[in-house]
């Protein structure tokens, strides 16, 4: 195969699909290459889909996309060993269409998205792994080499949407490899339960869904978070921790997941369910300060391969879609004006990103990964203290309330000095400002 395309997109996840879709819609000759048997066969997500990013690409996606439930309730739990404290936000507003967030099952969703890409006119090549980039004598990227016979394919530009590990970009020296300090490993299970059981346990009806985000004792002292999302007739449950923490301790990821599932607040929600799949995937969580160079001579990075994940808000797929769309729009403009995909010309990609929520949000939280890594009290002390405080206040045992307040205050001070408490408040404010 020594064909020439306008653009090659590597990967058929949300980033690659958004890019290929936008290009194909504009009549550009695009080839998309995916290593899995079908799009989605390698991909893992919680998964919450944020409607906005997809709506900008496919306004009527709700008519045909495989959506599980629209989310009407969000719970935030801080867990201690056998308790949790937290908040629930449920709104009738979220129940009214058009809905803002949905749970999805990625293997199904990616297949659907890919169908739309192909209908728009892109050519998709599955079961094909991109091994390397082809370059001309000046070093400009002019195509890819794949693991098939005569596997050289040429294009004016290559969009790398190959996900968190981004081996293609790393091996070509376009970016540094991800590191244990900038990546989290998440493990996940899909547990099936009858729809009526899911509805009853979460107080839902019809297509309504609820999600729980968790932190605290479940991450066993590591920087990490857990999640539990309702699908139509199943529950997705998982936990992710930073690799730099994971490698320093002695619990396997499976044990972490099993301990989380056994927590007294979580176990009843999944009781009697039938696990049908176990998955694992990396999440690039380095944030703004870990971002690589995003474009160069003939190439661009989009989605996870660029490190576009907002770990605080658990957003990734939307940043992937928006960055994929922006990379495509940059190329469409260049191709129309018959200008080459040089680094200088591709700089508008970065400008588009800077003007969007992608970079603005990443910048907002740039200090948080470092703060959490250095200031372990946020993970080790506060979840337990908060739970203990609630317990002290709510337990009716003849002790007067003023006394109880004092007890709580002392417990905080025992673990963190007064100055430490003030410092912590400042650190957290600075890291998320």
């Amino acid at each position, binding site marked *: 195969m020594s064909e020439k395309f306008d653009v090659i997109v590597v990967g058929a996840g949300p980033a690659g699909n958004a890019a290929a879709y936008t290009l194909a819609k504009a009549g550009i000759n695009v080839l998309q290459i995916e290593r899995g048997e079908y799009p989605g066969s390698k991909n893992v997500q919680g998964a919450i889909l944020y409607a906005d990013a997809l709506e900008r690409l496919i306004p009527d996606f709700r008519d045909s996309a495989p959506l599980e439930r629209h989310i009407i309730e969000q719970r935030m739990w801080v867990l201690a060993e056998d308790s949790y404290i937290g908040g629930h936000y449920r709104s009738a507003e979220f129940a009214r269409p058009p809905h803002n967030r949905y749970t999805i099952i990625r293997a199904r969703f*990616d297949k659907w998205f890919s169908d739309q890409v192909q209908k728009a006119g892109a050519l998709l090549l599955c079961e094909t792994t991109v091994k390397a980039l082809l370059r001309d004598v000046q070093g400009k990227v002019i195509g890819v080499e794949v693991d098939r016979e005569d596997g050289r394919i040429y294009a004016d530009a290559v969009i790398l949407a190959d996900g968190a590990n981004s081996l293609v970009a790393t091996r070509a020296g376009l970016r540094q490899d*991800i590191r244990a300090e900038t990546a989290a*490993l998440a493990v996940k299970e899909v547990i099936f339960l009858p729809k009526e059981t899911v509805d009853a346990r979460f107080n839902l009806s019809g297509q309504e869904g609820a999600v729980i985000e968790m932190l605290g004792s479940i991450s066993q002292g590591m920087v990490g978070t857990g999640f539990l999302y309702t699908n139509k007739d199943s529950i997705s449950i998982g936990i992710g921790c930073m*690799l730099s923490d*994971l*490698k*320093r301790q002695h619990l396997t990821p499976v044990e972490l997941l099993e301990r989380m599932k056994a927590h007294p607040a979580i176990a009843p929600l999944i009781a009697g369910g039938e696990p049908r*799949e*176990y*998955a694992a995937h990396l999440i690039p969580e380095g944030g703004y300060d870990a971002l690589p160079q995003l474009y160069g001579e003939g190439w661009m990075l989009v989605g996870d391969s660029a490190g576009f994940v907002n770990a605080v808000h658990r957003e990734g797929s939307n940043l992937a879609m928006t960055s994929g769309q922006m990379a495509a729009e940059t190329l469409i403009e260049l191709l129309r004006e018959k200008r080459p995909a040089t680094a200088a010309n591709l700089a508008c990609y970065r400008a588009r990103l800077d003007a969007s929520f992608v970079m603005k949000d990443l910048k907002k939280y740039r200090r948080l990964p470092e703060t959490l890594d250095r200031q372990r009290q946020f993970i080790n002390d506060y979840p337990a203290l908060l739970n203990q405080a609630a317990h002290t206040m709510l337990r009716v045992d003849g002790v007067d309330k003023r006394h109880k307040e004092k007890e709580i205050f002392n417990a905080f001070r025992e673990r963190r000095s007064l100055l430490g408490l003030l410092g912590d408040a400042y650190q957290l404010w600075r890291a998320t400002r």
Partner: protein
Amino acid sequence: MPSNVQAQVEKKLYLNRYRVDAGRPHIKIKDANVCATRCTAQQCVVCCPAGCWSSESGRVSLITDGCLECGTCRIICDEFHNVDWDYPRGGFGILYKFG
């Protein structure tokens, strides 16, 4: 890894669908002696979510059949860079039904 944990992992992997590229492991240990003699932490054994790595009296072995292609072993072997990691050939490996 204790045998009960190993059993837990296996039970989970049993739920998954794979197309195994028989005789062509996509991950290899570069130098088994480095694992056996220089790497004291052997963190790959603990961190692999699929229990592909095991250690017996210091010698580390790897069976990639249940691999979830996450990349963890590649990243955490950051002291000795002793993991030769690649994706399986196109179409092979894990096939998520849900993901």
